[in-house]
């Protein structure tokens, strides 16, 4: 399946952006995000800057609590910042209201989550077209067919998530992320719940989407093997971008990460599960 995209050049024809152009897809400057207040306050982002070019595959890495997930959520308009600016293309995301951010997500972004997050009541096909259905638009049948075939989901379309394997579910999630032909795909630990083999298949697919279709991809991961599929690795520590590795290899990343971990080691209580986790459970209490 890894090379399927190469054998379907038709897809590339329908994509406007090419990998070589150096257009800026995301520009983030001075991002600050604090959770909680007073002595319990946790600074998840502390002046992070980042530029992502169109058609690139970027991996965001960092130790637990470094703010990598918060950064991605901020870029994707899922979270509201305390300070700083995020531009998606020409759009200033930080100035947008709740509804506009929702529409931005729906129309210009695609999402892949760690825990596949498919709707159990919908079939695979319905899950894939969900963002389009929500927008009241129809899927481009050619594009949908290519996605489905490329991801090997053709004979699973009528099934519900409970009838699919983990790998299949995550491929449905990827198809859903790509179906709107988004400007950017955000992937949050996409291989976190997959075994190594299925993980590799998925990453190769993302790599191909980037190479062949010029798809901009931003991925948060803690796995050097996964990050090695990216064009560039952005390393975060304490809410700031401290380093970038271009054309990374797994071993180079692993070495650098190990070093960062050792630096962090003096801290006996590394915060488990970065900032976004702090809110979980509050709804349950209601």
């Amino acid at each position, binding site marked *: 399946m890894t090379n399927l995209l190469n054998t379907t050049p038709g897809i590339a024809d329908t994509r406007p952006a090419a990998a070589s152009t150096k257009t800026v897809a995301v520009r983030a400057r001075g991002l600050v995000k604090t959770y909680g207040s007073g002595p319990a306050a946790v600074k998840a982002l502390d002046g992070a800057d980042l530029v992502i070019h169109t058609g690139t595959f970027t991996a965001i890495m960092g130790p637990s609590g470094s703010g990598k997930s918060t950064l991605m959520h901020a870029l994707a308009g*899922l979270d509201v910042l305390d300070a700083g600016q995020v531009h998606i293309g020409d759009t200033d995301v930080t100035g947008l209201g709740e509804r506009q951010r929702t529409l931005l997500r729906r129309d210009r972004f695609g*999402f892949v989550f760690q825990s596949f*997050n498919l*709707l159990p009541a*919908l079939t695979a096909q319905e899950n894939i077209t969900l963002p389009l*259905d*929500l927008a009241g638009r129809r899927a481009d049948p050619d594009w949908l067919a290519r996605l489905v075939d490329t991801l090997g989901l053709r004979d699973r379309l009528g099934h519900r998530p409970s009838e699919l394997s983990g790998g299949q579910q995550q491929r449905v999630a990827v198809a859903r992320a790509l179906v709107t032909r988004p400007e950017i795909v955000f992937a949050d630990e996409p291989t976190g719940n997959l075994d190594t083999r299925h993980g590799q298949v998925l990453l190769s697919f993302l790599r191909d989407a980037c190479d062949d279709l010029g798809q901009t991809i931003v991925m948060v991961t803690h796995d050097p093997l996964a990050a090695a599929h990216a064009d560039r690795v952005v390393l975060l520590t304490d809410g700031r971008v401290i380093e970038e590795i271009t054309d990374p290899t797994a071993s180079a990343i692993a070495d650098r990460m190990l070093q960062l971990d050792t630096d962090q080691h003096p801290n006996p209580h590394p915060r488990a599960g970065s900032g976004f986790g702090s*809110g*979980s459970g509050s709804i349950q209490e209601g």
Partner: protein
Amino acid sequence: MLRLVLKQTLAHRGRLLLTFAAITLGVTFVVGTLVLTDTSREVFDDQFCDASTEVDIVIRDAVAFDAAMGIEVERDPLNSRLAAHTATLPGVSRAIPVVKGTGLLIADGEAIVPAGPSMLTSWTGVDGFTLRDGHAPEQLDEVVIDAATATAHDITLGDTVRVQADSEADLRVVGLVGFGDADGLPDTTVALTSLATAQRLLRLGDGISQISVIAADGTATSEVADRLRAELGTDVDVAASQDTAAASAAAAKSQLGFITGALLALAGAALVIGAFLIANTFSVLVTQRTRELAVMRAAGATGRQVMTSILGEAAVLGIAGAVAGTGAGLVAATGLRALLDAAGATVPDGPTVLSARTLVVALAVGVVVTLIAAFGAARRAARVSPVMAMREGALGTAGGRGRIRAGVGLTLTAAGVAALSVGGATESMPALGAGTAALVAGLVALAPVVAPAVVHLIGRGLSAVTGRSVPAGLAREAARRAPRRTGATVMALALSLALVVFVSVVGASVRAALQSGFDEAITAELVVESARGEMLGGLEPATREKIEELDEVGTVSPLRFGHWKDSGATRALTALDPATIDDVTHVDMVEGSLTDLSDGRDGVVITERQAVERGRDVGDRLAMTFARTGTVQVPVVGLIDDDDAKALSTDYLVSLASYRDWFTERVDATLLVRPSSGTTLDQAQTALEDALEGMPTVEVRDQASAAEARTASLDGILTLITAVLMLTVLIAMLGITNTLALSIIERTRELGLLRAVGMTRRQLRTMIRTESLLIAVAGLLVGTTVGVATSALFVRAIAQGGDLHLQIPTTGLALVAAAALVVGIVGGLAPARRAARLEVLTAIHEQ
């Protein structure tokens, strides 16, 4: 363990809030009913029992039975010389002649019409009334009234009031009395006069109502009573005064029995519907806490302990609901009284009585209903295995048990439908009752299968109309995905709506039958009746006398009602004037004619149905027991058409002449009037109204409004029941809100995902509201179907082949549909708002 239970209950208090509200509402209803009727009972006890504190023995004319259908029978007067004779007998200290009756008070031309009786009694000084001011009535033109009435109507000593009984007189108020500590009797006006005045007003001649005997010091009441019995013979009834008082109170209270029963039945319905909500809540709580429970099991808790802890939470909730419900019930009693009053069923008001029994019942009802409702969930919780602590996802549903449930449900439903059909065909009420119970139980069991399917179909229909919409589709799916939850919610609403539909359909059918029978059989242009709806009617003889004097009136034909005993059972009969009845009615006779009642011999005309049931024909005899005379063998002289008899109110018709022999009562229930020739209806009506102006409780109605009036009390009761049933609809609505709120908690992550991939808040709100509406419409469909089907069969059974046709009231059904829509819209508001407020990030990472 108790601490853990309390902590758990408090921790989930947000989720339990609506459940608590449902229990509280149900208990409120029960407590309100009990407090209301206890209070009224106490009033009756006060009215009758305290009244004879100093009196030991009461002597009255003997009757075959004391009371029928909640009212005491009237007795023939005693000769006043009997009192003098009694006073000379050994063991008797005093024998006081007493006259008792009804006398309306009129002050400044305004009649004082209390909710209860207008008492007129001769002054004795020993019957519990004590002078507050002035002196006892001595002269013929003097009267003493109760202080409460005097205060309420601004009457002072020296004022003149008119007392209207069989005759009327203007009397001077010379004294005010209280009763015990109170200023009077609840809902009652009291007029006390001299014996002679009372006799004159009640046209008793020198007759008296009773002799109140005070036994000599040192003699036992029972001994004196025995001696009096031996001395005075069987023509009189000698009884200890406390026994007669208790009997009177019991008669009055038996009327309350019906109201208590009806209100408690409605309270029961509210509790059953509340139980659905409770069951739902606990079921969801257990599902959501699967992991937590599994951890408890892994930590060494036994299944029994887990079950106990869940039931413990239910008990805590039940107790809390019972306590709150008891408090609210005290307030609700007042509201229920107002509702009953508006419905024309006045119950006496007095100091609020909260008995220990009420408290016990409230607590028992609150706890037991909650425990039963939570039992299924608790049992499921006990089956959570420790290994689920390590597993992702919620508890799977057991397919096998679902099939058993469906099987049981289908069997019960089929049995219910069969019993209903048999009951409808054979007109057997027990079969209908059992059938309804089985049908409801079956539907409850089937709910998880049927309700989601219905919801899905309605959703499909909706999509077909409005076009495909993702939020609506998702709402449909969500309802289908939690079949048990959706089923219980739909059924709660369906049952409450079915009750409203049932009452509405049966009411409309009975109403139509009552009116149509009246329209066809009664040809009199004018009908004179009491506006107060007394059971035997309330037209004093003076009313007829006044009307008969009028030139504008051609024919006046009275109808009277009486009770008789038919081997234990109490029945009603109608007395009519055979000479004039054909002028004012047109009835079909199967055999004989109404004028056959007139040839000076006693006789009874019975309905064809009674003739068949009793195997009696014209010429046979019917044993009828009357209070005044005992059992009489009455020949059957005619058979009347069943439906036409309904216009005359009973199945047994006798002549007025016979009635005078058999009954002491002299009040007319209805006067059927034809204008004299050459007088228009309007002229006659005006003349009647003018003549009866001084009688505020008498109403003159034309034929059409008389037909309407016959259903007025029915309408009142139907309105009351419907109003109260709306409470169950309200509980069902709480159920929808509760279910959706709980399901939102369960679906938090899913909702977060939807928001992440671009569902707007508006779309999310639409989705939740649509789900609410789908549940409501499903409840409406199921409820209306069940309600119409059962009421149709019931109507057929009540009709018993008679002229009762099924009437589907459009206004009633429109009301039900409107209620369901309101429930669907309002029920989803809060959960929808709440869902829309979910933070995307928080929701998406919710475990």
